[in-house]
């Protein structure tokens, strides 16, 4: 284990907090989420040159002037984890994040049925798999947090 990994291990699990009062509805979180989960990780190529087009794992809801982004809450008592029949949905030991191993997922959608936030999406562009927020594993902070221009999505350490 190198030093960086050691440091990463020490990090306290984070959680993403959504603050609808500051969401402007620009949807840049969606844009950057899509790019982060594209093959090329290049914003222009992801939009203009990738087929199937990648999909964002964050949802922006809007009604009137209220809007907010929403992604997996990585629940402590996650119903999707219980419901997953393949073991594709798992809890990352290091970060406590709920992740989906898309290679294992068969698209039974039990997770969609049980997720009370409705933030697990069917990705049917390629293999049908459940698509969800992975907290941008490998990034310092998730890109939705990083690029939200108004700090409507913030990262805070889990209590």
């Amino acid at each position, binding site marked *: 284990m190198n030093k960086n990994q050691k440091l990463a291990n020490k990090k306290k699990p984070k959680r993403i907090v959504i603050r609808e009062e500051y*969401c*402007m509805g*620009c*949807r*840049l979180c969606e*844009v*950057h989420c899509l790019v982060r989960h594209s093959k090329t990780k290049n914003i222009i190529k992801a939009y203009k040159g990738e087929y199937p087009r990648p999909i964002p794992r964050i949802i922006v809801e809007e009604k009137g002037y209220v809007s907010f982004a929403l992604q997996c809450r990585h629940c402590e008592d996650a119903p999707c984890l219980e419901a997953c029949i393949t073991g594709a949905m798992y809890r990352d030991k290091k970060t406590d994040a709920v992740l989906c191993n898309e290679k294992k997922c068969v698209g039974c959608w039990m997770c969609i049925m049980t997720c009370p936030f409705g933030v697990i999406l069917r990705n049917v562009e390629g293999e049908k798999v459940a698509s969800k927020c992975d907290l941008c594993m490998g990034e310092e902070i998730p890109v939705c947090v990083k690029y939200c221009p*108004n700090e409507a999505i913030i990262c805070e350490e889990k209590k």
Partner: protein
Amino acid sequence: MEGLGSKMSKRPTPTEFIIERDDEKCIACQACVRMCSNDVHSYDPESDTVSSDNTKCVGCHFCETICPTGAITIKRNPSEFKLNANWNAEVIKNITKQAETGGVLLTGMGCDKPFPIYWDHIVLNASQVTNPSIDPLREPMELRTYIGRKPDKLALDYSGKETKLKTTLDPQLKLETPILFSAMSYGSISLNACKSLARAAVEMGTFYNTGEGGLHKDLYKYGANTIIQVASGRFGVHKEYLEAGAAIEIKIGQGAKPGIGGHLPGEKVSEEISQTRMIPLGTDALSPAPHHDIYSIEDLRQLIFALKEVTRYRKPVGVKISAVHNVAPIASGIVRAGADFVAIDGLRGGTGAAPTVIRDSVGIPIELAIAVADHRLREEGIRNQASLIAGGGIRSSSDVIKTIALGADAVYIGTAALVAMGCNLCQKCYTGKCNWGIATQDPYLTKRLNPEIGARRLVNLLRAWSMEIKEMLGGMGINAIESLRGNREQLRGVGLSDTDLKLLGIKPAGEAW
């Protein structure tokens, strides 16, 4: 000719801005479409492309900032009228607009005309050899400032064993840095903007000013760092309001619109604003040009003392005026009327809405105003009796320090604070469509200003300026701001006329002590 008066008669004029969209970069994510309050951008699902309508663009640059690929550039329209020093493009456009509408031209922010900026013709001193400069990173450097009436001398009580203080100071405002946020009302700016200012004032140990919009219930908790304004409209003025702040400021005038009142259009008078201002929902909030209970200096004195009575002499009561020709004697009159501080707002001071012609043609620059007012008060031996706060177009720490050296105790910043919060001076505050969420009450837009970010940016600005002021002070070998205040020996003029130099009370560059 009857009836021709104010009918609209439209004729297209060249747009002010051109929006350049780099189609190779545009990913049609529609962030610009969603964000523009002026509906400049639109998306065509058929071709999956975004296009822009230049005629609606006000040049606020929000879309440019938000565009994730940098595909948008806002440029000034290079289309030019035949070159004419007298009848320039602005003049032609204004006449055309008025020929169409028959109305007064409105604008926002401060005077943008090329009057001389005296700050840019004043330079500061620094220590060389004969005295050491001081490094503010290593040595204490003090910016603390007290605003309020000071006695001419200390009174001591010698009656007891030990000498005791007999002087009881009049109420003072303690500033950790000599910069305050000037009056911007809730109404002219959003509640989030007010919150940003208030929180920044709390963190930096300074003050923000309610303007004439009353005090929203969410803002009462910042009272210790609030200057409560009483203006001609008396919006939202009640006992609780007057007692909520640390000081009271009677607003007589504003640099951007000396001599005229204010007008908050009914569309901006939302539920919350109507409650705060205590006016009916959706009605225009009109501030009269004068206070109708102040037609003379005696009347002002009565109001000053009425306010002092209400607050039981626990809070300084000041008066804000715009800088006009007689600013010095007026300031003197105000001090003699009992004000604890006089705020002077110069020609370049901002506004949420003012007739363009007033904004650009009335009043004098703050540099001259503060210099003559300070001088006058000293001449009369009453400088101690009130503090001077100068405002109106202060853009940098250099402007701040020069203004203080000219004689101000502290400065008010308004426009600079707005810029820190995002404003790009498109001057369209009066439309209520501010894309930055500052000069608007539209809930779609106000949420764009996260007060945490706003406050942080304001704090950063004040920190940066304070640090720069300390550096400059240190350079002069001074470690307390009071030793610079009114210390015009530290200033020199460059390229100023003898009259300017005389009025500013400074020597020309090149002249030694």
